[in-house]
């Protein structure tokens, strides 16, 4: 029946990512080396993890701008404890930080009915301030080498352990969100909250879970950040919220909720991360980074909106045509009888 089902937006993003690599490869062939491709992807591992978390929230139709501060706080907590020789505790506490920020956000949005952008904006300020309180404004430095080398552990050339874990996580979440009943709640809630309520889906709990997951993933991102960067400043993770929202949008996740997938978030983050390497290979200064991100974001989203409008129009016409045919055949049947 659904012959004209449009491709999922993530496909467009994947094609774009491949085209980008091929295009730059034409100009500078060494860009297409496997090691470089993997290096590009690896460099975006923190973005990828955080983007996957925020994708839950965006798919349920809310937004979370507190992830940047959460990454910073988790990194600071994890880093300082690892430095003092309590690695396991550090990792656990970093995850706890993420979960508690998520719970706080989720509680405000679902039970106090505060619009999510405002709630998480407030949380962002609070958590960012707490980083200063916790670190007393100092850098967390001198992390042990073993901890830093965690991010350098590699499989197959330069495929890092962190990225492998992220990809496995992505596949698992993708399956969970598309194949399990509870996993599909997220899209249902984002697509039509009232309809979801009528179907008996626990809307509030689903949104709360989405926020907790977003916080948790930001916590994991913070741990990875601490390991990759090796030192944590009080402004660690600042601006990440905007980057990962942009990544989600590039990956075809709609900010109105209900549309998008984890694959999209991952691909979007990969595009964002590869851009800066693309600039290096094209011989452009890194100053172009923001300009190109901005232009790309606007162009992709505007084109997508125009195409979707058209395909919606086409679908509507098809349905109308099908209805006419159907009623004609029905009248034929009745005339025979």
């Amino acid at each position, binding site marked *: 029946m659904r012959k004209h089902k449009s491709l999922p937006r993530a496909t467009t993003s994947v094609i774009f990512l491949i085209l980008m690599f091929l295009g730059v490869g034409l100009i500078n062939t060494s860009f297409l080396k496997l090691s470089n491709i993997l290096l590009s992807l690896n460099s975006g591992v923190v973005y990828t993890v955080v983007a996957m978390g925020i994708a839950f929230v965006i798919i349920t139709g809310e*937004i979370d*701008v507190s992830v940047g501060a959460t990454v910073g706080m988790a990194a600071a907590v994890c880093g300082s404890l690892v430095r003092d020789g309590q690695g396991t505790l550090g990792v656990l506490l970093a995850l706890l930080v993420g979960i508690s920020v998520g719970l706080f956000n989720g509680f*405000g949005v679902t039970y*106090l*009915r*505060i*619009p999510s*952008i*405002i*709630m998480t*904006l*407030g*949380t*962002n*300020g*609070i*958590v*960012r*301030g*707490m980083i*200063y*309180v916790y670190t007393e*404004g100092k850098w967390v430095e001198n992390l042990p080498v073993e901890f830093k080398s965690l991010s350098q552990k590699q499989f197959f050339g330069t495929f890092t352990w962190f990225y492998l874990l992220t990809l496995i996580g992505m596949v698992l979440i993708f399956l969970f969100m598309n194949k399990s009943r509870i996993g599909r709640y997220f899209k249902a809630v984002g697509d039509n909250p009232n309809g979801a309520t009528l179907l008996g889906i626990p809307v509030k709990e689903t949104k709360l879970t989405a926020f907790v997951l977003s916080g948790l993933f930001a916590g994991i991102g913070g741990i990875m950040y601490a390991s990759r960067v090796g030192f944590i400043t*009080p402004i660690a993770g600042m601006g990440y919220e*905007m980057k990962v*929202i*942009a990544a989600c*949008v590039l990956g075809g996740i*709609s*900010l*109105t909720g209900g549309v998008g997938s984890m694959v999209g978030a991952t691909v979007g983050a990969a595009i964002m991360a590869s851009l800066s390497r693309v600039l290096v290979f094209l011989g452009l*200064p890194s*100053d*172009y*980074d*923001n*300009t*190109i*991100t*901005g*232009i790309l*974001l*606007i162009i992709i*989203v*505007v084109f997508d*909106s*125009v195409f*979707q*409008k058209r395909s919606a129009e086409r679908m509507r016409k098809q349905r109308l045509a099908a209805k006419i045919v159907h009623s004609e055949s029905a009248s034929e049947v009745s005339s025979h009888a």
Partner: protein
Amino acid sequence: MRSTRSLKDIVFRWESFLIALLLVEVLVFGLINPRFLMPRVLFGSINNFMTISIVALFVTFVLVTGGIDIQSGAIVGLTSITIGILWNDLGMNLYLALVVGLFIGIICGALSGFFVAYTDVQPMVVTLGGSFLYSGIALLLTNFSSTEAYKGISGFPDEFTQFVRGRIFGVIPHQLIIFLVFVLIAYILLHKTKYGRYIFLCGVNRHAAEYCGVRTKLVVMSTYVLSGLGAAVAGILLTAYLGTAKTDLGKEITLPVITAVVLGGTSNLGGTGGVIGTALAAVVIGILRFGLSLANVNTQYLDIPVGVLLVLAVAIRFSAGNPTVQKIISKLRKRSANP
């Protein structure tokens, strides 16, 4: 209707709550540090939050239509660096450069506004792209300048900087007067003109506005132009006050601006709100930060109280729409009406 507004309605207004909050702040900080109450110090604090206040006034317009604008910080930086380069490196007349700066703000606003109004892309996405784009262009422009980007361009003539830094009778800063003038302009535009009513109508019900013959797309786009213009004005004032043109002047104002607008009672869902509330909220936040820093609180911690204030205030506002809370309030009102 307006004339029959009773005292109780005024007391229960959100703006009254903000004024009360402001008075409490002044009182508390005055008790902690009497120096705070010196007119020179108290009025001088406007310097710290002028940019945010002026940008927030015009971002209010955008939020009333149901949109959001997170690109104003980038426009502040872009305007500032453009003026610096035009004046310093290209030798343009400073006042001509200021006009060009205002035009830049208008163009940036119009570009984003166009995409918001004429395509179905969410305002948040467009202005997110805009914020990347405009801050990126600002960075690229610094390549045309002979000065290092991180130093910024300085050495502006005194008459330009003194216009903003000066004080009337040595007490009231010019910035306060400029701020009040912009509050008045924004107030008249949003609350006293036909255009302002159209903006509200677009926020309440876009389709209804369309059927009433309002050119909704144009109205929505115009709010982004205004917001871009407001950001450009703020960029000019900040450049003059600091005496330096830099790309990252507006880097961290986006979140405070939205905080001020929302704390001022403008809903991010559109249709309600006002300029006076935004102006009051901006002052409340500014005084809170200033007072705390005078009370020897580390300035880096100040995001915490501002965040708490935002969440608390909005929680109170939104729980007022909760049926059970409404019942309690109406009971209280009845009791006070017939004792």
